C-alpha cells in the first residue's frame, strides 16, 4: 500500500469531474421536484443521455453535438414520463421506475455497436496563463466547457427560482397545485416543461459519464448515479447551492475510493466500491429530519376536476 501515489492536485481535479454528472442530474431533478413532481426515472434518462451523446459524438466526431443530442434524448424520454403522469395520471413512483427499466434496456439496445469504441475527446477550455498557475491551474482551469456549464447552471437555477416570476410560479405549482390552478396557472404545462428540463439535465449528466469521465460505452454504466442524484436532492433540502456542496462531497468520496483502489489499500476492492452507496444511505439518515423543506404537492397527482 502506498498512499503517496495519490496526487492531491489530480485528486481534486478528479473529484470535480466525478461530481459533474451528479450536479446535472440532481439539479434537473431539483427543478422537477420543486414543481411538485417526483421523477424516479433519473437513472433511465441518464443512461439514455449517455448513449445518445456517445453515439452522436462518435458518428459526427463532435463531442459538443454529442452533449446536445444527450440533452434532447433525455428530454424526449422524460416526455414519456410526463405523458404517463400528467396526461394519463399514472402513479409517479411506478412511472419513474418504468422509465428507468425501459431506459436501461433501450440504451443497451442502442449501444450494441458502440461497445469498445473510443469517443472523440472534448478539449479543455483555454484559460491562457491561468492554466499555468501552480496547483490552482490544474485544479480549476484545466477542464472542459461542460463542467463549467454545470456550475453556471447551478447559479442560474438558484437565481431563477429565487428572483424570477417563472421561478415563483414553478414553486407555487409545487407547493399547492389546486391553488395555482384556481389562480389560472397551467399546472400540467408548467410541470411538463419542468420534467423536460429535468430530462435534458439528466441526459447531459449521463453523457458526461460516457464522453468524459470514463470515456467509453458499457451497458448500465451509470451504475446508480441517477439514484444518488435523487438522494442528493433530499440531502440538499431542495436548495441549489447545498446541492452543489453535496455533489462535491459524493464526487470526493467516489474519487477517493477509486484512488484508494489504485493505491492498493488493504481493504478489498468490493468494499471500497460499495462505499458511495453506503455513505448515501448514511447521509439520508442524518438529513431526513428536515422534511418540511419538501414541496407540499410533491408526488401528488393533479386533476382539474372542477
Amino acid at each position, binding site marked *: 500500500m502506498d498512499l503517496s501515489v495519490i496526487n492531491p492536485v489530480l485528486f481534486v481535479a478528479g473529484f470535480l469531474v466525478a461530481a459533474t454528472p451528479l450536479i446535472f442530474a440532481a439539479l434537473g431533478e431539483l427543478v422537477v421536484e420543486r414543481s411538485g413532481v417526483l421523477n*424516479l426515472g433519473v437513472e433511465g434518462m441518464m443512461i439514455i443521455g449517455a448513449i445518445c451523446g456517445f453515439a452522436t459524438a462518435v458518428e459526427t466526431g463532435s463531442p459538443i453535438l454529442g452533449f446536445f443530442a444527450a440533452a434532447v434524448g433525455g428530454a424526449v424520454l422524460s416526455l*414519456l414520463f410526463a*405523458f*404517463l403522469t400528467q396526461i*394519463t*395520471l*399514472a*402513479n409517479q*413512483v*411506478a*412511472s419513474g*421506475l*418504468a422509465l428507468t*427499466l*425501459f*431506459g*436501461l*434496456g*433501450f440504451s*443497451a*439496445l442502442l449501444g*450494441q455497436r458502440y461497445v469498445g469504441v473510443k469517443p472523440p475527446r472534448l478539449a479543455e477550455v483555454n484559460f491562457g496563463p491561468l492554466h499555468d498557475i501552480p496547483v490552482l491551474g490544474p485544479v480549476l482551469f484545466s477542464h472542459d466547457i461542460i463542467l463549467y456549464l454545470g456550475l453556471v447552471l447551478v447559479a442560474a437555477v438558484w437565481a431563477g427560482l429565487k428572483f424570477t416570476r417563472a421561478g415563483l410560479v414553478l414553486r407555487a405549482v409545487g407547493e399547492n397545485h389546486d391553488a395555482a*390552478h384556481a389562480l389560472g396557472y*397551467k399546472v*400540467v404545462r408548467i410541470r411538463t416543461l419542468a420534467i423536460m428540463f429535468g430530462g435534458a439535465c439528466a441526459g447531459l449528466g449521463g453523457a458526461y459519464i460516457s464522453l468524459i469521465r470514463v470515456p467509453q460505452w458499457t*451497458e448500465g454504466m451509470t*451504475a*446508480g448515479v441517477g*439514484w*444518488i442524484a*435523487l*438522494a442528493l436532492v*433530499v440531502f440538499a433540502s431542495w436548495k441549489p447551492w447545498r446541492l452543489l456542496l453535496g455533489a462535491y462531497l459524493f464526487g470526493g468520496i467516489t474519487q477517493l475510493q477509486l484512488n484508494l483502489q489504485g493505491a492498493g489499500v488493504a481493504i*478489498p476492492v*468490493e*468494499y471500497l*466500491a*460499495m462505499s458511495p*452507496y*453506503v455513505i*448515501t*444511505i448514511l447521509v*439520508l*439518515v442524518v438529513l*431526513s*429530519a428536515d*422534511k418540511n423543506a419538501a414541496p407540499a404537492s410533491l408526488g401528488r397527482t393533479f*386533476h*382539474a*376536476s372542477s
Partner: protein
Amino acid sequence: MVRLEKRPQPSRAFSWATPILAVIATMIFGGLLFAALGKDPVASIQTIFWEPLFGDFAFYYRPQLLIKGAPLVLIAIGLSLGFKAGIWNIGAEGQYIMGAIFGAAAGLAFYPTQSVFIFPLMVVAGAFGGWIWAMIPAVLKVRFGTNEILVSLMLVYVAEQFLASMSLGLLKNPEGFGFPGSRNLQQYASAHNGELIAGSGMHWGVAAALIAVIFAYVLLTRHRLGFAIRVTGQAPKAARFSGVNPTRLVLFCMGVSGLLAGLAGLFEVAGPAGQITIDFNVGYGFTAIIVAFLGRLHPIGILLAGGLLALTYIGGDIAQSQLGLPAAAIQVFQGMLLFFLLAFDLFTQFRLRFGQAEVI
C-alpha cells in the same frame, strides 16, 4: 376536444382489461421495434410467445416456465403487499442476492456432511438474509423517516458488491482451480433444491410461490392485516383513524417482501443456478416490479403475469439464438409493457368525454 372525467366508481371491467390491452399494445409496438432492428416482426412475436409453449421443443421450454416464473411470482407477491400500502421496496434484487448468499453459506458451512436438516436450515437462512436486508430500509424509515425507495435501491448495489466479494473470497470453491464462484450445490445432495418431479421444472421454489399466492390472497381478502394494507394505500389518514399502526405495517410489508425475495434467491442458488457467482443475479428483483403491476397487485393476477414475463424471458432467449434478436430488446419489451399498463390504467378511474372543452 377530448377531456377526462372521473368515474363515480372505478371500472371493474377496465381493471381486468388493462393488462390485456397493455400486452396487445406491447406486441404491436414491440413488433415495430423488432422490424426497426431488421427482424421479421411477426416471426419475432411468434417466437417469443408461441415457441416456448407449443413449438417443437416445448417439452424442454415448458419446465423452464416454472423455473423462471417461480422467483418472479415469489418476489412480486411480496412487493405487491407493500405497493398496495404505498410502501415502495424496490430493492428486491438486493434482498434476492442476500437470501442466496445467506442460504448458500448456511449449506456450505456443513459441506460435505449429509443430513435432511441442511436444506430446511438453508431455507430459514435464505429467508432471514432477505428479511434482514429489507429491514434496513424499513427500520430507517420508521426510525428516521428516510425514504425507503432510495435506501432499498442503494442496498442493491451494496449487495452486488458483497456478492462479488463472497464469490471471490469467503465462499469461493477451494477446489475451483482459482475460478470465482462457490461450490456447486447441485452436487451436494443435502443442499440441492432439485426437481420434485423429474423433468417438470417443479422445485421447492415453485411450491413456495404457489403457497405465497394463496397466503396473499387470503391475507388481502379475509384478514385484518390485509384490509389494513389496502386502506393504508388508498387513504393513509383513514387507516390511521381506523386504528392501523403505520410503523408496524411498514415493518410487516417490508419484512414479508424481503423474506420472499430471500427465499427466491435461496431456491435459485440451491437449484437452477447451483452456485454463488459474480453474475448470479439476472434482474428478477426488478422484473418482479413489472410482474406486480401487470398483475394489478392481485395475487392471481401476479401468478398470470409471472407466467407471462417468464415466457418473454424464455422466448427472448429463443429469439436471440434463432433470429439474432439482441438480449436488450427483451428488456425494452418488458419496459414497454409497464408503460402501456400505466397509461391504459387511466381508463379504470376515468372515462374520456368528447365534446366541449373545459378550461383547465
